[in-house]
């Protein structure tokens, strides 16, 4: 009896150790929110599909964190570069009035080469500054966003649906995707139950596909070498793996995923957000992957999936539930505390693979 009890306990402890306390607490909190919701007049079906749509929307952006973490470059605060590539791809595809899945595909196609180019440049950049990648990434991201703000006004886009109505030049701050490729992935094979529940199948298939691709990539020789560079640079060097090259490959991969993720985000969101919009977009993605249990030097696909679900769940549920309960706007503050608290928590934890 005693022995069995201990064993049982051991099992739970192991599970907890694997899953991690913060995730369990957050998951319970999230569950609690879902339980409370119906009592204060919030529809669970709507909330659940809101959450799912947002998971599909943000998943790939979170996934974009993985390659750089794995190669030891830390969290990709330079994600705005990928996002910019995604924006350029999307806007270019819309300039030609391409619609539906074709338009979406073309947006991705336009975005990828640009992302590769930016990724290579950024890779060289951070190879010059090993150890300070996150700080430099943040500022590179910011300055690129400001630079592109000038570009959005000057690039020769002429489609009247994209440019400022008043002057006919310069892209608008927000561009609607209605009539182009709004929700093409979300609606692809979408499942609707009742009037309120909606499952964005297409986005999930696409997200899963990207996850599998990234997972498969880390099983290839290059992928393994990349992880080796991140977890044990000396070992990698000894085996003739070029650290700098691997890091650049990882940055390119991250940036490309960021670009693709942005296009997916846009199709689901239905708007394109230019100018200073992308400035802080790296932060939610960073918070999500850390919430999923990643550290700044190791991240897995399951971290991405769990993190995205939990983070987006909290993001959709807290404002509406707390607002419904307390009739104040304190939710906004709670959101800031939760997301930054998570990043902080992860930064203070000693990662498994810390080599110092």
């Amino acid at each position, binding site marked *: 009896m005693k022995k069995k009890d201990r064993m049982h306990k051991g099992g739970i402890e192991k599970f907890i150790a694997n899953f991690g306390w913060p995730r369990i607490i957050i998951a319970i909190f999230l569950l609690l929110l879902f339980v409370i919701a119906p009592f204060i007049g919030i529809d669970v079906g709507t909330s659940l599909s809101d959450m799912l749509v947002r998971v599909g929307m943000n998943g790939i952006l979170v996934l974009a964190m993985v390659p750089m973490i794995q190669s030891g470059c830390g969290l990709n605060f330079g994600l705005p570069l990928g996002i910019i590539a995604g924006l350029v791809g999307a806007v270019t595809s819309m300039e030609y009035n391409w619609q539906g899945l074709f338009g979406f595909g073309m947006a991705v196609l336009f975005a990828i080469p640009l992302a590769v180019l930016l990724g290579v440049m950024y890779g060289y950049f951070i190879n010059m500054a090993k150890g300070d990648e996150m700080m*430099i990434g943040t500022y590179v991201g910011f300055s690129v966003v400001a630079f592109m703000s000038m570009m959005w006004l000057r690039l020769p886009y002429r489609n009247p649906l994209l440019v400022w109505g008043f002057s006919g030049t310069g892209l608008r701050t927000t561009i609607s995707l209605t009539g182009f490729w709004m929700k093409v992935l979300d609606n692809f094979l979408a499942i609707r139950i009742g009037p309120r529940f909606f499952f964005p199948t297409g986005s999930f298939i696409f997200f899963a596909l990207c996850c599998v691709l990234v997972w498969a990539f880390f099983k290839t020789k290059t992928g393994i070498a990349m992880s080796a560079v991140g977890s044990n640079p000396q070992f990698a060097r000894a085996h003739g793996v070029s650290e700098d090259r691997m890091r650049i490959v990882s940055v390119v991969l991250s940036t490309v995923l960021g670009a693709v993720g942005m296009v997916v985000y846009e199709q689901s969101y239905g708007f394109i957000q230019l100018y200073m919009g992308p400035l802080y977009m790296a932060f939610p993605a960073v918070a999500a992957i850390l919430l999923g249990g990643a550290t700044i030097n190791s991240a897995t696909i399951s971290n991405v999936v769990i993190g995205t679900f939990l983070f987006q769940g909290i993001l959709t549920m807290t404002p509406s539930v707390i607002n419904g309960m307390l009739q104040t706007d304190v939710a906004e503050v709670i959101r800031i505390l939760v997301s930054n608290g998570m990043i902080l928590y992860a930064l203070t934890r000693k990662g498994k693979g810390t080599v110092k």
Partner: protein
Amino acid sequence: MKPKYSLKGALISNLVPIVFLMFAAFAVPMSGLSIPYLLHEMISRLARDSLLVLSLVIPVLAGMGLNFGMVLGAMAGQIGMVLVVDWGLGGMPALLVAALLGTPISIGLGYFCGYILNLAKGREMVTSYIIGFFMNGAYQFLLLYCMGSIIPITNPELLLSRGYGIRNSMDLPNIRQVLDRLVSVEVFGMDIPILTFAVIAVFCLLIVWFKTTKIGQDMRAVGRNRAVANGAGIPVEKTRILAIIISTLIACYGQIVSLQNLGTINTYNSHEQVGIFSIAALLVGGATAENASIANVFVGVFLFHLMFVVSPMAGKNLIGDAQLGEYFRVFVSYGIIAVSLLLHAWKKRHEMLERRLLENDGKE
């Protein structure tokens, strides 16, 4: 090996300020702003921002990089200011009371920040950056929900109409420029706030003096090598926390000085940019995450703010579009930080490689 003085060496070690100076040399005439105006603006900004930037020097000494957590100090200063305004104080007493109130808050916040940074050794910069964001949430909670409900606020001009929470902007009618105006000298039509500069000078001297004390020496040892310092019996973690507390405290006073100069508090946003801009200024002044001096502070504030004032107009005249000027400024200010961080990192790596090569040569 003693480094010999060489022109090349001097150029390389002052690369960032030199790049900036060149930039300014082009941008100033392009902006079309007159020199007296710029001088006036620079003096005013040196008085306003030097103390804030000065707060970054001590953590660098302790090897903790650039302390983005200084915004916590700025928050403490602002809380002090809010209370002082609520109580209806004015003049110099108001500033002193605000400083008195800010002191315990910033010591507490500094301790918290130092504690967290001790848990995140090796990534202090990024961690302190996030602490800033995190505490901003706490700050908003305090000012928007606690003030007026838990903390009594009686001035209806400060309170939101809903009965609790502080308004988004606050005038400082009886506090505006009291420090600057108390003792000031007019030179060529420009008011020079002697007293403000005196306060800044006092803090500079304090820092210089502090470096020579036992604790200052310990701090330097910790900054150079944690393991060695630990071996020598220096309480590493405590010393690091102390460095952050001092930094937070100076930032608190710095924010008070800066707010009295500005004359308006933007309650929820005044402190946000303080960290980014102060760090940018210090970097522009030629400091690195490993090495910062008081000279860097003043050179940095001068150059960074010169660019800040000049670049929107310069950008506008350069591109001929009113709003591109604004983006141009943002691009330049963030870009410069990225580039200077990069240059420093590259320089550091270069030196390390050279050292390693030398060591290898020695072995063979």
